[in-house]
Each structure stands twice: as C-alpha cells, then as structure tokens.
C-alpha cells in the first residue's frame, strides 16, 4: 500500500464512473467476466456505437482493458484500478457514514422488537 493522499479524486475517473450507463456496463462486465460493444449493446437500451463510446471513456480512465478480438475488442474490468477508484472516491468519512447508517438500522430494529 503506497502513501497516496486521501483526496486525490481523478476527474476522468469520477466522470467515467459518474454516468449511470457506464456503471451499468461495469456491472455487466463484472457479472459476465467480459464483453464487447456488441454483446453489451444487446443488453442495454443504447446503440452499439454509444456503447463503444462509453467503453472508450472507461478504457481511458483505466477501469476496463480491451483485447482485440476479430474486428472488435473484448473488454474486462481492471479490478485493481476499480478497487483504487472506489478507495479514492469513498473517503474515510463516507465509510463511517455507511457504518453509522447500519448502526442506526440495527438499533432501531432492536428497539421496535423490544417494544412489540
């Protein structure tokens, strides 16, 4: 683990992951293991051309890597880069926000159970 400062949020990375279609694409690639603009296009309500464009954005941000396959490229998620992106994007603060929300949910459930 290197000592990178906590708040180095890369703009490219953020805009890559900030788009719902691209997040959906990452989900599908994680789920299926890999995919091409054609296979992803079949599962998304956008054109193959739009998918190819989105893949380009994800590729430039380092979130996916493409291997040439015939006339297309087959893409996989770069899990190391995705883990780094997530670590950068979620500060220590948001980690605690999530924990506190879980504490709240658990305590309120116990309270309701005891009152019932």
């Amino acid at each position: 683990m290197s000592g990178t400062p906590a708040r180095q949020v890369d703009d490219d990375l953020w805009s890559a992951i900030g788009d719902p279609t691209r997040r959906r694409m990452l989900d599908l690639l994680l789920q299926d293991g890999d995919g091409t603009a054609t296979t992803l296009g079949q599962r998304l309500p956008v054109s193959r051309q739009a998918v190819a464009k989105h893949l380009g954005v994800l590729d430039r941000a380092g979130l996916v890597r493409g291997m040439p396959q015939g006339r297309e490229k087959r893409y996989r998620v770069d899990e190391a880069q995705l883990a780094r992106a997530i670590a950068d994007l979620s500060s220590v603060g948001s980690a605690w926000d999530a924990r506190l929300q879980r504490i709240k949910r658990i305590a309120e459930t116990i309270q309701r159970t005891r009152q019932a």
Partner: protein
Amino acid sequence: MELGTLTREVYIEATPDVVFEVVSSPEHVKQWWPDDARYEPVPGAEGEIVFGDPAAGGTVVSFSVVEVQPPRTFSFRWTHPAGAAAVHGNSLLVTFDLTPSGSGTLLRMTETGFREQGWEAAVLEERYREHTTGWDFFLPRLVSYAADLGARR
C-alpha cells in the same frame, strides 16, 4: 503525516441502552463493520477485528478497548501493529458519545488519527468488501459522494 479528526452525528430512534449495545458489543459490531470481532467490551481489553477470511487473503486488524461507560461513552483504538500497545501515534481512536434526545439517542462518532493511516485502513477494508458485496455496497456511497461533490461546486 497530518493529524485528522472526523466527526459524524446521527439521530437514532432507540434508547441509549440499545444504541450502546450496538456500538460496543462484538456480536453487533460485526453486523455493521468487520466480518468478525473478537474482544471483551471492557477497558484495556486487547482484541482484533477481521475483514474477509484470514485463511484466504483476509486481514486481521488490532483492536483495543479504551473507555466503556454505558450508556454514554464507548471508545477504542484500532490499526496499531499487532502485539504493540495502542497509543496516540500508532492507531486511530474512535469514540462514540451517546446523548438522550427525545425518545431516541443522538450518536456522535469521532475518529482521530493520522489521515494516512485512516486512508490505508479504509482501502484495506474495501479491498475485501469489493468481492463480497460489490456495487450493492459501493454504489450508495458513490452516489452520496456525487451529491457531496455537487453541493461543493
């Protein structure tokens, strides 16, 4: 390295007794944070919290109880080197303060320590979470980050 303090407050519709139990007992702590928590909730107790499966690349993190005053205060130190005494400078100090408020409790969490250490701890944790919960876990956090970013711009 820079010393940082993080403070969060949340209102919980449950009595301080219940909230205290949830923030301090290992059985509850592992429901909202690590995969396993092994410590006695008494002052000075040394223990550990576990992320993932230690036999399969998971990680064990030192955890040391500092203050236990039910139902007001629970604090602990974590991330110090295994076997070392947890002190200022080698660990993060987390303090939960509970205040009765209406029919519920105001829970205030403060984490103090070197920022870099906190960041490393967060990365460590997320690395293991990613494989178990994936986007279900991270997406809400990314969305709240986006809202944050939007508010600041």
